[in-house]
């Protein structure tokens, strides 16, 4: 038996080593050769959707001397709760991806440390209301809007809806599909849009909406790829983004449109984590996320709008991704205070 144990231990050790060395090699590949050593390694925790062009990251590492270690941590909700759970002994130095629906909770939990970055032109208006210590820096934004399949409506000689209230009109019975508020970030944004629009009467609106046979599914991909008529489903009205019409372009025309009076604006923030091992490096990363290079890469890499007004947008976006001028708003503290009640009420309504 001893011999077997020794043999298995040996196998375990050698294979274990091979795994480790493989990873170390790839890590040193990405490390800059001759950057200044002041900055060192800085760990950026993000949601899973975060990605930037390699050459932008390399240029940053070369100029700053930092080695950027990227650590994805689930979707926006998972990211926020991981930061909350590990508060004071953070899983990185700087975090990106907490949005305005989760920001107030993260703020209250004391996850972030103050850092006042120089904002690019136009970014001021995305600052988180109530963030008096300036711990969160806005990096990007996107509108969650009801979309319609304009080709479908044209073929049936029916005017598409234009407002949230239209969705409860019997003319549009059984035509709307949305992801759920508990299982999907855009789904939550849609619930907030209805709350922003109807205030305390929002449950009545939802009762009407559900009575008009609105369908609630798990995620955005379910709604858009299974139920939406554009993808072969049977519902021509779907909850999606203000940028979505830029992806349904054929022959210079988009066959879908976003309803700009139904939009809720999501803003994503970056912040230095309280208790970070490398706070100076973390601040450099926040500045990096606001740099023109990153701001310009945001649309193509992450499907979001930059906060920097001076950045040029991709051609299809400039033409087809119309932006809401006056998105529906709900104050972040109000979201933090009421989220639980709203969601349990919403769950009761939708599972009834």
């Amino acid at each position, binding site marked *: 038996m001893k011999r077997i144990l020794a043999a298995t231990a040996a196998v375990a050790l050698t294979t274990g080593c091979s795994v480790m060395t493989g990873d170390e090699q790839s890590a040193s590949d990405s490390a800059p050769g001759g950057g200044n050593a002041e900055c060192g390694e800085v760990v950026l925790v993000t949601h899973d959707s975060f990605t930037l062009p390699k050459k932008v990251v390399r240029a940053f590492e070369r100029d700053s001397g930092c080695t950027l270690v990227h650590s994805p941590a689930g979707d926006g909700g*998972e990211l926020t*709760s991981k930061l909350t759970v590990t508060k004071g002994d953070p899983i990185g130095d700087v975090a990106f991806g907490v949005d305005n629906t989760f920001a107030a909770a993260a703020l209250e939990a004391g996850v972030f440390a103050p850092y006042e970055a120089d904002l690019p032109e136009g970014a001021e208006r995305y600052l988180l209301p109530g963030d008096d210590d300036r711990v969160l820096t806005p990096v990007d934004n996107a509108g969650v809007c009801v979309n319609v399949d304009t080709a479908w409506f044209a073929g049936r000689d029916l005017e598409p809806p234009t407002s949230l209230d239209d969705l409860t009109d019997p003319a549009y019975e059984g035509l709307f599909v949305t992801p759920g508020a508990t299982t999907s970030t855009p789904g939550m944004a849609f619930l907030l849009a209805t709350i922003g629009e109807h205030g305390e009467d929002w449950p009545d609106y939802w009762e009407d909406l559900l009575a008009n046979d609105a369908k609630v599914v798990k995620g955005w991909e379910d709604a858009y790829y299974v139920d939406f008529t554009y993808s072969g489903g049977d519902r021509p009205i779907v909850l999606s983004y203000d940028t979505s019409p830029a992806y349904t372009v054929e022959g210079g025309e988009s066959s879908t449109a976003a309803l700009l009076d139904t939009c809720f604006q999501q803003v994503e923030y970056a912040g230095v984590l309280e208790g970070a091992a490398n706070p100076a490096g973390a601040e450099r990363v926040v500045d990096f996320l606001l740099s023109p290079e990153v701001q310009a890469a945001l649309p*193509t890499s992450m499907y979001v709008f930059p906060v920097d007004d001076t950045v040029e947008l991709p051609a299809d976006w400039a033409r087809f991704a119309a932006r809401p001028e006056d998105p529906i708003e709900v104050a972040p503290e109000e979201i933090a205070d009421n989220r639980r009640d709203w*969601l349990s009420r919403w769950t009761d309504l939708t599972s009834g």
Partner: protein
Amino acid sequence: MTGGGSAGTGRLLGLLGLAAVPTAVLGLFFLLPVAGMLERGLWPEGSFEPGAVLEVLGTDRTRRVVWFTVWTSSVATAASVLLGLPAAYVLHRLRFPLRGAVRAALLVPFVLPTVVVGIAVRELVADSGPLGFLGLDGTPVAILIGLVFFNVAVVIRTVGAAWEGLDRRPAEAAAALGAAPWQVLVTVTLPALRPAIVSAASVVFLFCATGFGVVLTLGGVRYASVETEIYLLTTGAITGSVELGAAAALSIVQLVAVVALLGVAARLRAVPDPTVRRSVAAPTRPRRRDLPALFVTGGVLAAVALPIATLVVGSLRRDGAWTLVHYRALTGVGADAGGNGGGLLRAPVTEALGNSLRIAVDATWMSLLLGLLVAVVVTSRSRSAAERRVRSAFDGLFMLPLGVSAVTLGFGFLITLDEPPLDLRSSPLLVPVAQALVALPLVVRVLVPVLQGIDDRQRQAAASLGAGPLRSLLTVDVPVLWRPLLVAAGFAFAVSLGEFGATSFIVRADVPTLPVVIYRLIGSPGQLNYGTALAASVVLAAVTALVVLLVERLRVPGAGTF
């Protein structure tokens, strides 16, 4: 006498030594993190506050959620066993062309991301789909079908592995004495298979009770299971802040239920004499009386194949025409908003596949090694009732990772493995270890019935003929164990490739795996990204089936002759 006594002590010490490694791994990577999460939930500010827990347990919603979990898991388990038994017989006892390929293909559901399968199933059953007339979309029936789809392979493989080596002579004797085929089945075959069937059923039940992707995707937002509830509470989706107290309460419900279930399973599994007479009779050609079994197997295969076929077709079509464009896109990094080819993914799909395979290989050898040690300890002959009980508890311990919330485990890693000497939370080792722990119960359940079936007298005979422990292991155990070990390896590999539970909650160093990339693609706008996600899923399925097929064809020279 004294000689016997010291040999007994030596035997116990040897067993303890064998048990030490898996116990240490389980303690560090499972018990510690889960205990850490429970502690955070129950002692929020350092003082014990069970109030929140009791409050959660008393609500109507909790009762509803627990009941829903119990009944869907029970029904899905029963259905998986009923459908899986005939298929296990056909695929492991009968001989027909492409048998190995079919067996490997049945593992495909294990590796497919639930979100992709969910979408494939919904495209079939949605009102606009070809099966829309059934009206299944968003119903509990759709959830049950999804659970059976993912789990029927567990029954087929676990029971099949035991059935394959089952001695035919008792059944033939019964038949010769005038028993009808069904009487042979009920009085001879099924009792002999009982340990394997109970093992498979308990694993399937745990998988069903903790699988949250299926419930969320196929049930829409109307249905909640304990697992989905823990997920939503822990990630703050329900309240906007992390509700560890409530999540801990539900985790405790899970733990208690799992321990109770394992107790019942252990009792049901126990047979007076687990020794199975092995024969190496070759699989036979199908005969007329096999028709019902063949019929059920055909149905199971069709049901598993349908969503997969939907995926394959979807991956090959674009704008109403057949195309390979999605497969060509696999070497790229996804379509981006500017349409100039790049930026969505951090690594091409092909690179992610490489990462996935490397991690799966590590997880496979880890779980085989640990599983073998556990199985040897569990099945060594006990010398007293107390020893047997300890052994049974030890067995149950390693089933726990299947029954405890992946969210709880994943978050537990973050808060417990954060300080030297255990600063492991961003270690590249964490992902394969977590996957190995999830695969471990399957490995143990495949190996234990087989090891139990070996008559200890064979080992004693070998020892009395002068063979050392190693020699005895190689000549008595290994020949019998080899095939089941390969079955278990295929299992572990597939589980690891498709594992989304705990590993998706670990904060990882940036080594994107294929499932992560598929999620990213399917969650992004653009038909090219959607098609590429389907193509990537098809590749994942094909690679899995191929690897499992090759693994099962491995043979050691001389094994199987005894």
